[in-house]
């Protein structure tokens, strides 16, 4: 079965420091990986995705993520955190198994990121 794990419920980082939000996945086929951010009482905003190609993916708002196939991980990173980065971050995965024509995104439980001034 496909699954996504975000092992940290909450991550605390001082403003200006680098941040990492962890995500590991389990799929049967090739993974398509996504990061989304959710601000309070808002919908989900797309940050970045990995489909194929370069393992380092750059996305919105200075975020990037590194795909590591051997460790089945897709950690979200940013070199210098801003207070405005404080939000809930979700990792999601989908894949297409042989014979499949449909898909659905499988989501992690989310990680609350708190950036302190």
């Amino acid at each position, binding site marked *: 079965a496909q699954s996504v794990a975000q092992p940290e419920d909450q991550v605390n980082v001082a403003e200006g420091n680098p941040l990492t939000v962890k995500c590991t996945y389990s799929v049967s086929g090739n993974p398509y990986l996504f990061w989304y951010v959710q601000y309070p*009482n*808002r*919908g*989900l905003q797309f940050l970045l*995705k990995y489909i194929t190609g370069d393992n380092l993916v750059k996305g919105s708002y200075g975020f990037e993520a590194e795909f590591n196939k051997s460790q089945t991980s897709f950690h979200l990173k940013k070199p210098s955190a801003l207070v405005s980065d404080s939000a809930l971050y*979700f990792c999601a995965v989908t894949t297409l198994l042989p014979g499949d024509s449909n898909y659905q995104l499988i*989501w992690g439980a989310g990680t609350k990121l708190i950036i302190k001034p």
Partner: protein
Amino acid sequence: DAGVTQSPTHLIKTRGQQVTLRCSPKSGHDTVSWYQQALGQGPQFIFQYYEEEERQRGNFPDRFSGHQFPNYSSELNVNALLLGDSALYLCASSPLLRGIDGYTFGSGTRLTVV
């Protein structure tokens, strides 16, 4: 260019009632997916519509039904509401059936069942 629009933004219903939530996809998108997000949890896939047909369904009971119209807009209907149906309901649209280019989400409808 308008993104995904959901209505209403908030809704309070009583147990046993029925509710209809609405979604207008982003311009150029033809696939609509619905998700339920309970407080403190990640989104759970309800179903996906393409060409006015339900293409895929998550693990939700038949009380949850939907519809897609020729203009690609969509409705989510929930019958016989339970307290556990209280959640943020998110609509997402995408330009391809497979949507691997990434969804665009609406801001959601917050449903409270009392």
